[in-house]
């Protein structure tokens, strides 16, 4: 599914658009950065409640093109700026991580 279609389906508030045309088929979820670093598949969407700048470092190094921030939290200005530079899409979703992952599963995305 394309990133922009996915954001629309989730009713997400897109803070930086990134590459909206890029396809995403896998998802990772978690707030421990080393856990995500060690386990996330490249190219996956990442669901987290972390909003600070270091999130971008992990996303860049693991090539994660979409960060979905759960529970209505917003990216800090530093994170937003870095994601704009790196063409990573950041979007805020009102639901919890669980809720978002449930919807992503319904949309056909896997682990």
């Amino acid at each position, binding site marked *: 599914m394309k990133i922009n279609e996915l954001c629309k389906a989730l009713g997400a508030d897109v803070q930086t658009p990134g590459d909206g045309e890029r396809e995403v088929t896998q998802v990772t979820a978690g707030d421990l*950065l*080393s856990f995500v670093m060690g386990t996330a598949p490249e190219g996956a969407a990442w669901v987290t409640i*972390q909003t*600070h700048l*270091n999130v971008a470092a*992990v996303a860049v*190094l693991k090539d994660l093109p979409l960060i979905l921030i759960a529970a209505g939290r917003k990216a800090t200005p530093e994170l937003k700026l870095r994601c704009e530079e790196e063409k990573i899409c950041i979007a805020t979703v009102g639901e919890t991580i669980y809720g978002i992952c449930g919807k992503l599963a319904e949309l056909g995305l896997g682990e």
Partner: protein
Amino acid sequence: MAEPVSLEYKIEGNDYMVAGAASNNIKNTLKMLGIESDVCRRAAVVTYEAEMNLVIHAGGGILKALISEDKIELCTVDEGPGIPDIGKAMTEGYTTASDHAREMGFGAGMGLPNIKRNSDVFEIESTPGVGTQLKSTILFQK
């Protein structure tokens, strides 16, 4: 590659704002050199975790990368507090990160295990009160 490519970065302790920049630079250099993507991925994990260890635990240090014909050697040297029990530090889930670092999502206790898992050769030496030296080698496919 005629000559090995050598990169060296001074990492500041507790500077979370630029953390990850050196790792990103090394990954981009590897990509630019046309190194296979699996090696780039593994090197990214190793350098990021090693860099974060310098930031979180060691009060800073040096991160070096030496890229040659058949391998990349990544090493860090610091003059931090050292690791009293390396066996414990290598256990997944064990961490001594501060509350502040944990709130930011660091301190999963996966840093050193992630480095080892992504290395072909992994060496670590540490002396409490003196510092820690870590070396990770990733071999290129033949």
